[in-house]
């Protein structure tokens, strides 16, 4: 890379440098490949192990439409799957707008001062706080101080807090990667700051933002600790009221205040039961959870691909 001005090295010397660099490139690529393969193999091993163990339940449709039960072969994940879905809905609706807004503010509007520096350091640190701490915060704040109770709303809010830093950081990275020319062109046409952000910067940053959001949600879906702390249940054999209904006003929000359980808790409970049949259920639940996570990551990749293509 570095071209030394002045004295040009002799031809054979140059060739040996190039050869040496090629070799180290190859070695690095090899190391990278091995690390990647090890990581993939570990994931595959876990997945295959769970899938083989959980197979008898995975192929049984009852597993997906039954409530938990003391009979392992009749127990299902319905209440846990619905609980997880609704909690994720709340989390997404709260965390994405808040996180994107915070990211936009920090990147576009905030004046450089020590206060913004402190906020920035805090946001990065928050991403590393153990999830149980969020659970304790939510227990004190949402459950007791605000009186929201041990509900889907509380769980959605605590998981939203948990992934907020991820979304803020992703939004900022995405915005930062927008070329300056785009902004300057918008200003040149007479757009004000908000118009520039709304019409040019955000649409261009969308792939990065969505990736961040979905990676955050994929983390939230597997969390058990904060949800147990705020009082998610383990046995619940009924579903929350549906969010949509036939009579006006067609949507209702009663489900937000409903008790619930989520898949990681159901899994944890089955793993710790003495009967080996419950361990089959746990393995099957693990597979479903992994498929959901991988599915969300796949969706992120697809959206990014689509939006990149559209942007061209």
């Amino acid at each position, binding site marked *: 890379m570095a071209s030394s001005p002045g004295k040009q090295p002799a031809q054979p010397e140059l060739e040996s440098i190039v050869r040496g660099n090629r070799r180290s490139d190859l070695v690095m690529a090899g190391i990278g490949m091995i690390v990647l393969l090890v990581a993939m193999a570990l994931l595959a091993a876990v997945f295959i192990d769970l899938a083989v163990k959980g197979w008898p339940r995975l192929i049984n449709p009852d597993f997906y439409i039954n409530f*938990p*039960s*003391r009979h392992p072969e009749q127990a299902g994940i319905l209440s846990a799957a619905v609980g997880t879905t609704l909690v994720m809905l*709340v989390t997404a*609706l*709260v965390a*994405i*707008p808040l996180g*994107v*807004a915070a990211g936009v503010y920090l990147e576009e509007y905030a004046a450089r001062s020590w206060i913004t520096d402190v906020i920035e350091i805090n946001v990065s640190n928050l991403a590393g706080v153990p999830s149980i701490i969020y659970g304790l915060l939510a227990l004190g704040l949402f459950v007791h101080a605000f*009186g*929201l*109770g041990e*509900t889907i*709303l509380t769980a959605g809010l605590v998981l939203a807090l948990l992934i907020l830093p991820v979304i803020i950081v992703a939004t900022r990275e995405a915005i930062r990667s927008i070329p300056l020319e785009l902004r300057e062109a918008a200003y040149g046409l007479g757009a004000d700051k908000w118009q520039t952000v709304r019409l040019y910067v*955000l649409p261009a940053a969308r792939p990065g933002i969505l990736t961040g959001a979905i990676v955050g949600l994929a983390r939230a879906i597997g969390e058990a600790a904060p949800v*147990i702390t705020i*009082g*998610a*249940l*383990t*046995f*619940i*054999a*009924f579903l929350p*009221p549906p969010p949509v209904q036939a009579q006006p006003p067609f949507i209702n*929000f*009663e489900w*937000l*205040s*409903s*008790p619930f359980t989520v898949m990681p808790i159901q899994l944890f*409970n089955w*793993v*710790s*039961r*003495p*009967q*080996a049949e419950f*361990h089959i259920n746990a393995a099957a639940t693990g597979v479903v959870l992994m498929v959901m996570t991988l599915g969300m990551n796949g969706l992120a990749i697809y959206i990014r691909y689509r939006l990149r293509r559209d942007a061209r």
Partner: protein
Amino acid sequence: MLKRASAVSAFAVLAAISAPMIHAADLVKVDGSSTVFPITEAMAEEFQKTEKGKTQVTVGISGTGGGFKKFCRGETDISDASRPIKESEVKLCKENGIEYIELPVALDALTVVINPKNDWVDRLSVEELKKMWEPAAQDKITNWNQIRPGFPDRPLKLFGPGTDSGTYDYFVEAVIEGKSTRGDFTASEDDNVLVQGVASDVNALGFFGLAYYDENQGKLKAAPISWKGGKAVSPSVENAKNASYQPLSRPIFIYVNKKTADEKAYVRRFVEFYLDNRNSQKLVKEVGYVPLPEKAYDMAMNNFKKRQTGTVFHGSEVGIGIEELLARAPK
């Protein structure tokens, strides 16, 4: 898209805050010990069937201590407990004006297990267990031959439940008669980890609830226990029920909020379903625990109908027959 999402979420939050936080169906809220959970789960499952959807039951596993915290704030109707209520919890309930009815619902036999290849242990006395587990044994008692002359020269590997569990608390009370055990043993909150540990090490010894031994009889051996010079008794449903397996049989409980039992007929129906011999004898056994003698459930039902509040336990007590406990007047 983002704008729409934020509008919806703002609306959702507003609606949620203004929405009344009540539910249409009758709801019995139970929380507490994970040891009692399988029993309450079975009861809830069957009770919901007989109620045909009119009443719903939810069961959490916050642990015995966590469950009492909620119960004494009036957040739950029933608390599952794998040990009697503690002095500090009695105080908390009193401060909040919560009166409770203490009801034993089953027995659990703490089982001391060894590896099946262990051919030197035919029985163990409580004194020998104490020698192994007491705090003074830490770093000193590390070999089987220190426990009894005649035991082989082999390292002693101990496995037990985590210090937060009611099982651990009871073992400490029954065997050590102190506050804690030694600290240098392999602890896990997941009893299946303990099963694996003991099953894969000839020199291991561990303890946990009878259900985990029952399900793993091929991989483990249970040590018969002798107490106060008596003869050694094996842990089993029968020996726990007839009170001969002592001092490691323990009652497990539910605590019912007296006020909700008075006010809510469906809470009352659930507790009566729970204590009814027709349900309890069958369901408790099905999930791997030891049912109380029939007479004991009748006595518990009687205590519930009389709304006898308070606890009959005074500090640490082990090895008392269940019927004797039920006949006691609470303080």
